[in-house]
């Protein structure tokens, strides 16, 4: 059951990810990206990280991608026009991609030979309590530094957007 669900949502994620690149219109690409985020959330859920899954949907699919779509709609960006691609890229692109993926898979297999096999639902630390405890004890410094970084980004955005002072 887990494997079937994994295969379904992994395939959806990959197809949507390819679709992000293939689509010519920004809105279609953005919607495909939402599909990727959603299926990733289901994969987290299958692994037993329910809090992370919900956070993924709320933050990425629900907030960030809505902003993406909003900006695309606001700027009224049209479909991109296809230009003629170079002959070399057309000829070598696909074989090179396959080679790259194969090499990556090979090196990952060599570097981490079956060190950590992931089982569905075997991960136990996925509840909200666990995540909260980890964030505020073990990872307190990175957590706080990230929040300061985001604060700086917010202030920077306001300064940039505010023309009349």
């Amino acid at each position, binding site marked *: 059951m887990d494997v079937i669900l994994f295969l379904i949502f992994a395939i959806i994620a990959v197809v949507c990810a390819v679709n992000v690149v293939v689509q010519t219109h920004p*809105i*279609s690409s953005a*919607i495909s990206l*939402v599909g990727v985020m*959603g299926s990733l*959330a289901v994969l987290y859920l299958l692994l037993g990280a*329910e*809090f992370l*899954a*919900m*956070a993924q*949907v*709320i933050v990425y*699919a*629900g*907030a960030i991608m*809505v*902003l993406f*779509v*909003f900006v695309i*709609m*606001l700027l009224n960006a049209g479909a991109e026009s296809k230009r003629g691609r170079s002959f070399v890229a057309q000829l070598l692109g696909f074989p090179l991609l396959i080679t790259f993926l194969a090499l990556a898979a090979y090196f990952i297999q060599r570097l981490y030979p079956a060190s950590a096999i992931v089982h569905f639902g075997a991960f136990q630390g996925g*509840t*909200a309590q666990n995540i909260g405890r980890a964030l505020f004890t073990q990872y307190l410094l990175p957590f706080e530094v990230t929040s300061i970084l985001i604060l700086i980004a917010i202030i920077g955005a306001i300064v940039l957007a505010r023309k009349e002072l």
Partner: protein
Amino acid sequence: MEFFILSIIKAAVVAIVLLTTLAYLQWVERKVIAHIQVRMGPYRVGPHGLLQPLADVIKLITKEDLIPPHVNKFLYLLAPFLAVTMALISISVIPFGAQIHVFGYTTWMQLTDLNVGLLFVLAISSMGVYGIALAGWASNNKYSLLGGLRSSAQMISYELPLSLAIASPLLLVNTLSLREIVQAQSGSIIHWNILRWPAPQIVSFFVFLIAGFAETNRVPFDLAEAENELVAGFHTEYSSMKFAAFFMAEYANMITVACMTTILFLGGWQPLFSPAWGSNYVPALIFAAGGLVAIYHGFNPARKLDRITLPVTGVVFLLAGALFLFTPAQAALIPLFWFAAKVGLILFLYIWIRGTLPRFRYDQLMQFTWKVLFPIALANLLVTGLVVALS
């Protein structure tokens, strides 16, 4: 296998009840608004217009379903589907009542209980924005586009105070499962989160309610479909069942927000005061009072037909009241009564406000959330956190 069949039966019951409620909520809304505006409301189809929802459904199904030639077809068709699906899914984690025993089976009056149930509702409702935003964009119509833009900006903005208002009662109950949130509020009204010691959540209750109104695009926050500026906003180009899908989504979202308010702040299915003081007799008394009033008016009829209809209604009410005194049914019916009563009150508030308040201007809408609601919700969360940590 038993679990599977039980789940299917529960899902079917919940779906039927939800869809009927959706249809009749619209009838109630039209009636209440009509009486606020000193009109009669729907009256032709069935007694007091009671069959009006059925007539509306038939009208919407048989209407011509046209797709304008200039739309982005895929997204145009996807949008209403997305809106209505996301609106209906959240009901699956809402607990309606306590544990019941039927024909030897023990089950909860809830489809499923997730340990991240609250986050699930938030996630689903945040996905609901796409339905409206995409409908506005894919229609390829300037009014629709403006409606879609307005609604996505509004929903992102109001999600912040909404989430902050949810966070403070969570500090009191210490769980994310909706069933456990309700169980933590057992006892009388002083144990409900809205009045709970040491940090009563009255402020966050109102913030949640206001932000919830905005999230569902209801008056006074219905700028996405402001009819005197934008024709019909994001659903201008939709007809027939696709229009009905948006309509259903709006009412389903209303019900979800009402259920969430009830669960988070008003103690879910818990009674107003403890059963030791006789709260189990309240539903029977209310129904009996309604029945007696109807019978009294039946004996002093204002119109000819009232001589028959009102006593019959009264007897039905008395029978319903008697059902609440029937011990085997009590365990199931009384929690359901309290839950429905609270949700119904909030839904009535929705309609009442629609009949009372004018629409916000767009800049007022944005200033209100960022400069008023957001700081209030933040301060409330801070104070609640402090009080909970110190006590």
